[in-house]
């Protein structure tokens, strides 16, 4: 038995090593994702190109515009002389925001009338629009408050009380609200799942396609030995991928790992077992490598959209939430975010461990049973 299993595992490793293309792709995939998310995509909208039509040209109007600049959301790089010019710049995509100050801005303030400021936002990109609107409203409110208290001081000669309400929001775990930090661990989990499922399904289907499976079935090799031999090298490969991704992510992109790496590796084993079981299960259904790939997409699509990798589960309708909680990736994403970003320990994660373990056992058992049927 020892000879059979070891021989089979050795063979799998040799084949894996000979298939450099697949190996290289599997190992470099997470790095590609890190580079794309880390460098190319900037989901935090700051320094939006802004066109200004300041008809007032007074110290008061400059004060207000400085407030816009200081917020860092707006780059006031285009001062124009007409409303049309603003329209042209926004239409041409040269500016995302336009600010129009009326000619009587300073006068209105002095006369204690309402001064109207127009902020035009290119809302075709909702992310930009939301940022711009929030920032502009905040600047408006802060400015109004400051002007109101100054006027109060001037008219009564008394120092006004500080602002009555002081709400201070603290963003925990990701204080700068960098969305990359939220997305990267999830995407790495998804890549891990995608590669493990695909590769093991391919490896098993290939064995059938090339007729070597027949020789294995005729040999004394046991079904479970065959499964273990297929799973072991792929677990090693999955850990290699994970390690590379973590090292790269921490060193190059400063992704935090606040919790225990040992715990992360331990819990990952259960997730990997589940995805490998799923991969083998696919291989028993698919007749060709191509079919296996197509089937795999039926798992990938709901996994990436419903597991909370890209969108929070809390915001989904009840049915979608129910589906989300039968997807193994959902649990793993919570584990990996929990450990990396929050630094939480096993006491918060043991239910996740339990669920993943059950899913893993069920999938591997099912794949062994189905494999049995395919022989007859």
């Amino acid at each position, binding site marked *: 038995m020892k*000879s059979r299993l070891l021989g*089979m595992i050795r063979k799998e490793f040799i*084949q894996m090593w000979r298939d450099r293309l697949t190996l290289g792709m599997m190992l470099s995939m997470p790095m590609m994702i890190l580079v794309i998310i880390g460098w190319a995509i900037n989901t935090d909208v700051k320094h939006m190109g802004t066109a200004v039509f300041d008809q007032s040209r007074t110290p008061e109007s400059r004060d207000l515009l400085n407030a816009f600049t200081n917020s860092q959301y707006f780059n006031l790089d285009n001062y124009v002389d007409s409303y049309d010019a603003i329209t042209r710049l926004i239409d041409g995509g040269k500016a995302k925001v336009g600010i129009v100050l009326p000619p009587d801005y300073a006068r209105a303030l002095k006369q204690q009338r309402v001064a109207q400021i127009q902020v035009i936002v290119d809302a075709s990109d909702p992310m930009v629009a939301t940022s711009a609107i929030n920032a502009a409203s905040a600047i408006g409110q802060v400015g109004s408050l400051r002007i109101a208290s100054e006027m109060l001081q001037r008219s009564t000669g008394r120092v006004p009380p500080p602002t009555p309400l002081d709400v201070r929001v603290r963003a925990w775990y990701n204080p700068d609200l960098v969305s990359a930090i939220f997305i990267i661990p999830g995407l790495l989990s998804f890549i891990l799942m995608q590669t493990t499922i695909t590769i093991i399904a391919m490896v098993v289907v290939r064995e059938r396609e*090339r007729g*070597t499976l*027949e*020789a294995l*079935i*005729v040999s004394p*090799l046991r079904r479970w030995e065959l499964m273990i031999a297929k799973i072991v090298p792929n677990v090693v490969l999955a850990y290699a991928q994970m390690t590379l991704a973590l090292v790269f992510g921490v060193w190059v992109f400063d992704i935090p790992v606040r919790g225990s790496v040992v715990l992360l590796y331990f819990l990952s084993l259960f997730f990997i077992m589940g995805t490998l079981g799923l991969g083998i299960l696919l291989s028993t259904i698919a007749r060709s490598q191509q079919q296996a790939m197509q089937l795999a997409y039926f798992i990938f699509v709901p996994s990436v959209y419903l597991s909370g990798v890209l969108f929070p589960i809390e915001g989904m309708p009840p049915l979608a939430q129910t589906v989300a909680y039968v997807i193994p990736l959902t649990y793993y994403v919570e584990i990996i975010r929990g450990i990396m970003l929050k630094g939480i320990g096993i006491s918060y994660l043991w239910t996740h461990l339990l669920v993943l373990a059950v899913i893993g056992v069920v999938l591997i058992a099912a794949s062994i049973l189905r494999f049995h049927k395919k022989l007859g």
Partner: protein
Amino acid sequence: MTEVDVAAYAVITEGLTKRFGEIVAVDHVDLKIRRGEIYGFLGPNGAGKSTTIRMLCGLLDPTEGSGHVLGCDIASEPERIKERIGYMSQRFSLYEDLTVRENLEFYASLYSVPSGIKRARIEQMVRMADLTGRERTLAAHLSGGWKQRLALGCSIIHKPELLFLDEPTAGVDPVSRRNFWDLIYRLSEEGITIVATTHYMDEAEHCNSLGFIYQGRITAQGSREEIKANALKGQVIEIECHPMREATILLETLPGVAEVVRFGNTIHLVTEDRSLAPADVEARLIGEGLKVDRVETAIPSIEDIFVSFVGLADRRSLRAQLKRMRQESI
């Protein structure tokens, strides 16, 4: 089957049947294959050869019937059978991304060849397959004949008592086929029982015993001599005469004639039974004004017997197919 039979025969089956839905691939097959013999299992494509072999190897479960291989029940003891048999299919079952040596090492470990003798056994197989110096070549880079011999090496690396060969020479050049059969003879001399399926008739001549299968049924079985003596209901008459064209047309109309085939200068006449004598045939030909050089009975070839089991309608196309294969193999 009795216990004595089970022990005496390498393979013995009773009513072995395999259905795939409506299709009966193997229909109540009774096989008796003695230990130490080379048994040729003949039949046209789709006759049920491979399905039968697959049931004997434990690749498929029989729908009905029973069988014993090396004294073990194929239904209840397949794992015990697997350790003692070798199996080589026409697909060769080699790992193309592994080298010659790695393939042999893998199959040695699969059959738990003891590590003490593993090296020597691998060397032996490399020599047998004439692959010395190519141990580090990827199997993908070997030509057909080499692949075939390597596959044979992989399937006998554990010295099985019984070797199943499922169309082992399909798609291999004639020289390699002859070399291959030389190897099979040597294995047989070492005492290994060989069961080979083939649709090359010349290969049947290499076998001690033959079984014919057609549409899932065994139509004849026995030693090669028995088969040649008894399996044909009619007889074979060889005729040399001129002009051959007219003779062929005339002979086809004679009552009691099953088949008229031309082999070079000779007309090969297969009769349906023994009632048509060579003298009658000669008389008819002379009566029609043909010049007759020779008319005599001949020992039927394996091909004649093989064709006689096939339905009348299929015989002509089968002969044509066999002729093509004969030409390929020269």
